[in-house]
Structures are given as structure tokens and as C-alpha cells.
């Protein structure tokens, strides 16, 4: 077969010549290879100081969005939980009371909303399933913890703070879902 990579080598098991059987030239060649590598550029990215540039489609930690008036978008329809292949999402729905219109956009909202970050596979299907543009995966990294329980993120971790809105413009570019 023709070689596609141009790296094909014919293997043979012919007996070694005397020079080859000394092994010393081969060892010397090997040491030259390692010497060459000693002066090559390091491939390491020193993480906390330097960060790798993420791709625009990178899927990291989730965020539950608020709209322009600071109301939670999520209506606790459960479509994200249904779509989730890892069954990482659970929620409890609650009816919006009078006087809570400034907190929740829809008449129903999620009283609790939990994502188990150890189960989550960051596939992004929850984001695709969401009809209310409430859940998004951002380019933030899920921090490490010592206890398993700390990986179950509730609304306190997921809903964005009103004064610290999280930029998801990279993922919301199409506007297919209509205006927020």
C-alpha cells in the first residue's frame, strides 16, 4: 500500500553489524536526541499565572441567567433535567407569589436548583434544551473541593449575582431564541 504519511519504514530483522552490536553509536545518538531536547522550548503553561486561551465554544461551569431587570429567567420547566444525559440536574418548582414579580420573570420559578458537578459531563444539552435562555455554560472552571458534597451546586452558586453579571455573549450570538 502506498504510504500516506511519508513516514513508512520497511522493517527488517537482518543480523546486526559489528558496529551496531557495540550499541555505543546508538547510545550516543540517543544522547544527542535528549541533548537536543534539553534546549528546546518548554511546552509547559504555568497554570495559575498563565492561562490557556479557551475556544469560544468552551463549556465550563454553568450559570443561571437573570434578565435586564435582574429577574431570574428560569421557570423550572425541567427540560434541562430531562435533557441531561448524566442526570446531574434536579429542581423543585414553586409558584410566584404576589410581590415577587421583581425576583422571577415567569409565574413559576425554581425554588431549588441543583447541579451535581461530579456527574455533569459538560455536554451543553441543558443549555440547548432551555426555552427561557436561563442556563448557560460559561468559560469559568469548576473549582476543586475536598468533599464530594461541595460539588453539588445550588442556586447560591449557579444564579449570577445582580451586581456581577456573567458575560455569555460568546454563546448567545445567534439570537435564535428571540429576545430575552
Amino acid at each position: 500500500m502506498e504510504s500516506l504519511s511519508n513516514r513508512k519504514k520497511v522493517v527488517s530483522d537482518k543480523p546486526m553489524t559489528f558496529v551496531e552490536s557495540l550499541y555505543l553509536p546508538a547510545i550516543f545518538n540517543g544522547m544527542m536526541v535528549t541533548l537536543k531536547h534539553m534546549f528546546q522550548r518548554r511546552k509547559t503553561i504555568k497554570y495559575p499565572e498563565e492561562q490557556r486561551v479557551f475556544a469560544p465554544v468552551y463549556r465550563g461551569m454553568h450559570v443561571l441567567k437573570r434578565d435586564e431587570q435582574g429577574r431570574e429567567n428560569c421557570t423550572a420547566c425541567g427540560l434541562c433535567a430531562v435533557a441531561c444525559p448524566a442526570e446531574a440536574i434536579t429542581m423543585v418548582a414553586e409558584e410566584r407569589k404576589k410581590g415577587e414579580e421583581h425576583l422571577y420573570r415567569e409565574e413559576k420559578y425554581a425554588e431549588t436548583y441543583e447541579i451535581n458537578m461530579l456527574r455533569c459531563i459538560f455536554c451543553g444539552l441543558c443549555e440547548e434544551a432551555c426555552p427561557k435562555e436561563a442556563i448557560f455554560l460559561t468559560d469559568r472552571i469548576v473549582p476543586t473541593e475536598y468533599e464530594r458534597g461541595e460539588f453539588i451546586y445550588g442556586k447560591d452558586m449557579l444564579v449570577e449575582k445582580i451586581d456581577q453579571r456573567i458575560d455569555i455573549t460568546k454563546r448567545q450570538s445567534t439570537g435564535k431564541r428571540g429576545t430575552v
Partner: protein
Amino acid sequence: MDYALIIEKFVLVVILFLISLGIAAYSTYFERKLAAWIQDRVGPDRAGPFGILQPIADGVKMFLKEDFIPQNSDKWLFIIGPGIAMFTALITSAIIPWGPDITMFGRTISLQVTDFNIGVLYMFGVVSIGVYGIMIGGWASNNKYSLFGAIRASSQMISYELAMGISLITIVLMSGSLSLTDIVNRQHGMDWNIWYQPVAFLVFFICSLAETNRAPFDLPECESELIGGYHTEYSSMKLGLFLFSEYVAMFISSALIAMLFFGGYNFPGMDAFSGNLLAVLCVGAFFAKIFFFIFVFMWIRWTIPRFRFDQLMHLGWKTLIPIAIINMLITGLVIAFNEGWF
């Protein structure tokens, strides 16, 4: 009794002790750095600038670990093993001439703890004792992997000591002396033994790798088959002493190679200097050579994979010893011819 002599030797011993340990400590750091560079990585760089405090951090870690002694082990031998390994690695430095005499406080001070007239024999004796530390440590652990490691270490050392000794006889023949000072002084300037005895150097160098249990001859402690070999059961500073003694042994081996084949403290153009300046330059040249060989030891470790045990024995008994014997016979004949025996 000359008290000044005692003080002088004592100071020299303490300095040598500290230098040996310091170089061994920083060898661990440099080994990790070099391994990283060869593999296109950065290596330890967190403890202090460029990670130069890493050996101290490692030492503190070793001290803080639990010092565990297995229940069925032979406790005294278990404790003595690493001590012997470290002790034998350190006492070789007593006979190494580190430089020419210096004049200080109106005295001529020799930069050598003791000038044995049988320095080469002493060196071999001490190197041979070195195997006892590993052997005792492996035996006392009461663990089959440790014992395997210890058996491998002893068989390897015994096999390679033969070739090492025979290759050294050529140097002794050429120098006509067993004193290391004489051997070094004979290689004045650039007149090094390596130009006359390249084959002996090669055999000696390979045997040094085997004697110090360095790759590609690190069979006694290979992780994949023996789970660490003779130090499987060791923890805390006892493990630290075993690992450390390997680095001290590497330092001493490099010093021996530099001394026997690369002129020791001699360097080209040394006749232009004299007195204490010459001594300082000589010591500098000697250490430069030692560091170069430490570098080569590490370079080889991170290049060549480990030997199989039968290959190791094959190389030792069927290749190196015949080469060393033939080399010795040829050297002897040439010297006899030059002396006018025929």
C-alpha cells in the same frame, strides 16, 4: 602531638562532609530539572526562585513523614542498613586529593584528608562495603521484593567490581603507584590518562554506573518489577538516607572518574599560576570536571532504558571483563617493552 594538624584535618573533614551532602542535595534538584528539560518540561520551580529551595522542602518532607518499621523486620539491621549505605558513600572522599597544597597561617595544608599509599585499594574496599547497606536493608525488611532488590544489587556489584578493578590496574601500571596523589600528579597539565587508556575509561565508566545503581543499571530499585526494590519498606529519613547515599555515591564516582582519567585537579595552562591562586583554580577545575560527570550520569539516566537482568550479567561477565583483561595485558606488554624487558 601536633594539635594544629588535628584541627586542620577536622575542619577539612567537616567541609568535605558538608560539600558532599550539599552537592548530593542539589543533585536531586538538578536531576529533576534535567529530566524535565529532556522531556520538554519545566521541572520544580515553585519553592523559591527557579525552585532552588526544593531540596530543603524535600528534606523537611522526609523528616516529617512517619518513620515506619515493619513488624516482622529485623529492627537493628533495618535501622543500620541506610546508615551503612550513607557511611560508605561518604568515607570515600577521605582519600581524594581535592587540590594541591595551600599555605595558610604559616602552614602548608594538604587538601586531602589522608594520603594513603594504597589509596586505590582503600577505594575498592569501601566501594565493596557499599553493597552491605543495600544488602542488609533489603534482608532486614523481610519482604520478598526487597530481598530481590538486595540480591540483584549484590550480584550486580560483585560482577562489575571485577571489570572495574581490572580496568583500573592499567592506570596503576602506568602510574607505578597505588597512591591517588601520585596518580593525579602524574597527569600534569593536559597529560591525562584518558588519552592513553580510552578503553579502560569506557569500562570504568560503565562499571561506575553499575556500582552506583544508576540507570541503565538501576535494577535493584526498579519500580515496575520490584516496587522500589531494597527500599520498598523504608519511609521517612531512612528512605531519604538510601536515596541520598545514591547521590553521594554518584558525586564520589564522578570525582574518581575525573581524578583517575581526566587529570583530577590538573588543567591545561596550570604552570602559569602558583601558590594559593593555583590551588583555588585547581579545586575549581576539579569541581568543574566532577559536575560535568554528574551531568553525564544524569543525562544517561534520562536517555537509556533499563537493562534486563540477564543482559546485565551478560554485559558484565562476557563483554566488559574480557575487554578489561585484554586491555590490561596490552598495557602491561607495552610498559614492559618500554622498560626494556625484551
